């Protein structure tokens, strides 16, 4: 499967009469976005605001972040099984508005959710302080049930991102990157002397506000499966996860998975990237047993020499992470784990809720318990009313001048457990 990803660099976002891209500037029509969101009668109001790098802006609470993309050629359309019809994606050509995002904001439950600072010392903890963000603030109809609100918010973000993505269809990209993975036997023959490496991508799948969808299928009712890495770049996986801001994998992070990106960079040089095994993180222990058995079986079947494993979340998923690690290792496959840590504020406690002897190589993406200070911002998109009830916030977090003291885990993607952050140790 071969995908050409055309990257259209976006340096600024502004309101305009027509949603379009011109000379690196994304113009968005506010009224059309609002109209699109309000097509869903579960949402009573929608407001569009823009947030650019360097501005004195704080966005909270955040539900999802999505990079606008569009299929230019090849099978299927963006977000298959959710926004568009179910059809295989991952081949042909796709354009991405790199440097632009759609951010859905809105309080789904009382304890929601993370924040993004566009400037100041806390901006460096989130990648979205460096993107030009179209923020869609949504309000549900009175009394809307939590599951329905989550679904409405999820769909609103995807719809707006798909609409904005269309603006990139006929634009000549600044850069075209080609990603290709061949059917397994052919792929092995292409680089017969290089180690065969796979990526085990664990999807959050526990329940309300903790879900992920693959081609529209709820990840908790799927069994582990093989995916060509390019499928994810066309939106085959979307996020329905709203809990634990620091390490939730937003739809943006699925589209831009850094493990896949880096494995492709080394593909054919010092490793042979065979593909992705998708699995879940269910609550029922029997599901964990079945899924980890199947992950190990797929690794063996594909003849992998080594795998990288990422998880999403803390606690329950740590058990899946360790079961996968143990069983895959027992098949003779080398395993490296990637995750963030919750070892307490002093960093002295156990980082994960589970451990196995086989887990002897791990890349850390940071400690979510560290306390940081956030200076006041001139503008707030959304509301700060819930800062003290957000994950990472606490009583006394929000000061009268608008400054905040909170744990790092309050910041969206600050310790994301796939390495799309700046807290990992890096080799140069």
């Amino acid at each position, binding site marked *: 499967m071969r995908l050409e990803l055309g990257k259209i660099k976006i340096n600024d976002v502004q309101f305009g009469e027509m949603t379009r891209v011109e000379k690196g500037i994304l113009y968005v029509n506010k009224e059309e976005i609002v109209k699109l969101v309000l097509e869903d009668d579960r949402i009573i109001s929608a407001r569009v605001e823009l947030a650019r790098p360097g501005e004195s802006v704080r966005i909270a609470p955040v539900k999802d972040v999505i990079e606008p993309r569009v299929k230019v050629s090849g099978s299927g359309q963006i977000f298959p099984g959710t926004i568009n019809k179910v059809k295989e994606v991952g081949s042909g050509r796709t354009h991405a508005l790199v440097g632009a995002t759609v951010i859905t904001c809105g309080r789904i439950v009382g304890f929601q959710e993370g924040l993004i600072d566009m400037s100041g010392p806390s901006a460096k903890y989130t990648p979205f302080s460096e993107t030009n963000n179209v923020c869609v603030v949504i309000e549900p109809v009175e009394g809307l049930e939590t599951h329905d609100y989550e679904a409405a918010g999820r769909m609103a973000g995807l719809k707006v991102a798909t609409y904005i993505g269309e603006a990139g269809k006929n634009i000549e990209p600044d850069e075209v990157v080609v990603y290709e993975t061949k059917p397994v036997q052919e792929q092995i023959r292409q680089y017969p002397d290089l180690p065969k490496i796979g990526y085990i991508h664990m999807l959050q799948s526990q329940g*309300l506000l903790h879900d992920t969808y693959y081609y529209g299928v709820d990840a908790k009712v799927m069994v582990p499966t093989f995916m060509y890495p390019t499928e994810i770049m066309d939106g085959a996986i979307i996020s329905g996860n709203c809990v634990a801001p620091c*390490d939730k994998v937003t739809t943006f992070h699925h589209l831009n998975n850094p493990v896949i990106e880096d494995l492709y960079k080394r593909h054919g040089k010092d490793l042979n990237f065979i593909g992705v095994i998708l699995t879940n993180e269910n609550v029922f222990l029997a599901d964990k047993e079945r899924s980890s058995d199947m992950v190990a079986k797929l690794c063996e079947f594909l003849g992998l020499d080594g795998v990288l494993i990422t998880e999403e979340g803390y606690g329950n998923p740590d058990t899946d992470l360790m079961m996968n690690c143990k069983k895959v290792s027992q098949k003779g496959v080398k395993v490296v784990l990637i995750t963030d840590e919750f070892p307490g504020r002093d960093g002295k406690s156990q980082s994960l*809720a*589970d451990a196995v002897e086989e887990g002897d190589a791990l890349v850390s993406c940071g400690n979510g318990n560290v306390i940081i200070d956030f200076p006041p911002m001139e503008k707030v998109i959304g509301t700060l009313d819930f800062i003290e009830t957000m994950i990472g916030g606490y009583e006394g977090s929000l000061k009268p001048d608008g400054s905040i003291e909170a744990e790092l885990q309050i910041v969206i993607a600050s310790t994301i457990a796939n390495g799309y952050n700046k807290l990992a140790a890096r080799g140069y």
Partner: protein
Amino acid sequence: MYKTIITNNHKVFQKYKDRYDVLFLQEGSYMDVLNETRNKVHRGYKVLTHPMAGSLKPNQTPYKSIIIGEGRGVTDYESINLIENSIEAAIKFLKYKSTPKWSEKILKDFETVDLSFIENVVRNPMFDNA
């Protein structure tokens, strides 16, 4: 296997009290649910759902529901490991920050999320045969 739901979540109790054995710790804390589960596990029960379900940390949500199954009088060491690790992790979180006093509205949201984890397990076709 005979199953018991240990919970301090009123919504879980209401939904399943007529269908399953529910040990409802009405005034109990998150830690009380974990400790009660540990007591049962040491008496031969197996843990069927992960004690740390959900990304909400033990010092964030006050609610916890765990499903256990009656074993055959044999100690299940995996269950012991799981519940002991979960208790250790919960103590770690609660040590430096206790669970806030949430408003009624927020408490209801926490109950709904906790209930969702259990609902998704109970509707699993494998569950009744587990």
